[in-house]
């Protein structure tokens, strides 16, 4: 029984064909890496999955946890356990991180039939997980992502993932802009969250991340399709040779 089943999806934006028949199956307990040249549609795929407006398919189907994903609105998808760590996290001036996180966590808990956390309970939990991500309390008092460094934003995304405990986490270039230590922290966070009942899709350009978060499968997205799939060794080949021989134009 798969967590995510993408069946032959097509998408165009403003008459430009971006995805031309992508299929992908993700089972519980698996880690999939998606690689591919700039502009090949990796982030687009993550937006389709998370239900962003303007990213409606022209054809194809997606099933998430045996439900028709395309029937769900963006917030419902999150409620059901789909999480996206943004390539470019969005700043929310004036919205305190703590309030934002609490709202998100309580919506998810409500959906799962769990009791909502009161302010104190929540603060305790948030601080505990934040410290495991080396995020200072002071940062949680600030507006969401405002004035956060590149690396802090990425760690804050992973903190949100930990708090929301999704079934499927899609990490879009969470490694970019991280220093070596932060890369380890983030990878640790992901590895601790990963279990037999959930799954992770990591979108990355670098083999480096995959030394820490070891994928079961590596897929190359190029020219609107998954050009090639393989094991971790595929990432190493690309690290060495680039996309030559895989991608038409490379």
């Amino acid at each position, binding site marked *: 029984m798969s967590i995510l089943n993408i069946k032959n999806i097509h998408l165009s934006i403003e008459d430009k064909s971006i995805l031309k028949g992508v299929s992908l199956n993700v089972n519980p307990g698996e880690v999939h890496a998606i690689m591919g040249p700039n502009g090949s549609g990796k982030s687009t795929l993550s937006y389709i999955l998370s239900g962003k407006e303007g990213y409606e398919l022209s054809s194809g189907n997606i099933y998430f946890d045996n439900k028709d994903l395309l029937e769900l609105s963006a917030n419902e998808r999150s409620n059901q356990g789909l999480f996206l760590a943004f390539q470019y996290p969005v700043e929310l001036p*004036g919205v305190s991180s703590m*309030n934002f996180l609490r709202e998100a966590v309580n919506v998810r808990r409500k959906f799962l039939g769990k009791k909502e956390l009161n302010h104190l309970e929540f603060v305790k939990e948030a601080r505990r997980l934040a410290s495991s991500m080396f995020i200072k309390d002071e940062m949680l008092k600030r507006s969401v992502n405002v004035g956060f460094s590149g690396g802090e934003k990425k760690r804050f995304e992973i903190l949100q993932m930990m708090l929301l405990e999704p079934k499927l986490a899609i990490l879009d270039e969470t490694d970019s802009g991280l220093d070596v230590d932060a890369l380890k922290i983030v990878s640790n966070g992901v590895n601790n969250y990963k279990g037999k009942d959930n799954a992770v899709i990591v979108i990355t350009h670098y083999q480096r991340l995959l030394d820490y978060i070891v994928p079961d499968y590596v897929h190359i997205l190029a020219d609107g399709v998954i050009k090639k799939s393989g094991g971790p060794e595929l990432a190493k080949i690309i690290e060495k040779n680039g996309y030559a021989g895989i991608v038409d134009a490379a």
Partner: protein
Amino acid sequence: MQRKHNDFSKAIKKHVNENYLKDDDRRSFLNNFSDWPSPTNEKWRLSRLGKLARKSFIPYVSSSKKIKETSATNEDFFSLVFINGIFCKESSDKLPKEIEMSFLSAKDLISNLRDVNNRSVLNHPTLNITGSCFQDFIKLKIKANCSIAKPIELLQTGNCPHNSIHPLILIEVEKNSKIKILEKFKTNVALNAPLQILKLEKNSKIEFIKFHNDDSETTNLSLLISFLKEDATCNIFNLINGGAFTRSETHSYLKGKNSSMNLNCVYLSTDSQHHDVTSSIYHDFPNCNSSQKVRGVLNKNSTGVFQGKIRVEKKAQKTNAQQMSRALILSDKALSNSKPELEIYADDVVCSHGATVGELDEEQIFYFLSRGIDKQKARFMMIEAFLSEIIEESVDKVFLDEVLNETEIAFKKILEN
């Protein structure tokens, strides 16, 4: 072709003749009012009074019959209650001995405005109709060297849909004194035309919060004039959400060095409401600060206006003046206008101004959605953030909860469909 105006100048002439025949000082204000400002008047171009001009109403006169009184209940304030612009002693709290209250005449009004020479003030309809038609002219004097911790609450109520009302107050803060005031306009009248004068003596301070929350048919034309001496600080925060048409106009004269005028505002508009924040700050002395920051949220067919003027005289070196207006538009029929006016004659000054008008950002909304928070809640949290930033920056601690609360009620209302 303009539709016919009701002749309000005739109505007030009659009113003054009937009630204050011998009062030449009132008549001097009366003579300055011939009609409502026309749309060709630059100061009123963006906020037109045609609808008011066509309405038929006369100034309110107190009748002997007892009106049902709202009485002050809030323990946290010294409350002063006004009904239809008339001070209501029975419903009001007794003031502490540091605050002296008295009643003034039209002559006193003239003498207190001696230093004003701007045409936009002298020709302002509120000045002239309230100067001629007021019933009570209250003066509150905060004696020197007093810091009064418990705030004053001015409750401006009213219920006479076919009348204009003319609240008139002078607040004088003597040197080294501090006072905090919360004023609430909550009237159901044809026209609410409050005139207020603040005089801040050396090193005095006022924190002044004003809620403009009149009935949906009411026009409110508030005019506030403040004078600041050396080292004085005047912090005013306006919340405008009521009325069919509300214009809150302020003129501040910085008449001593190191004085500081902060005039920030939030307006929340929906349906066909029109809200106008007009302010002029006159920097006449060196080393003074001023800030005019306005944030508006507009839904449906509403319109918002910010006209902010900063005038820096030649000798007002080292002036620091900031002005910023931001409007959030929630409907494609809502409109916000902003008109900065900077007249700077000194060379060593820091002046900044800017204006933005925008919609809620879709990328930001999507970030909320991606975390499971629904669209309605996301909009709510974003508007709350937009407003609380300025409120927290502008409002004194003692009023913060009340202002946040009142704002939340108001913006929940404008989010309704």
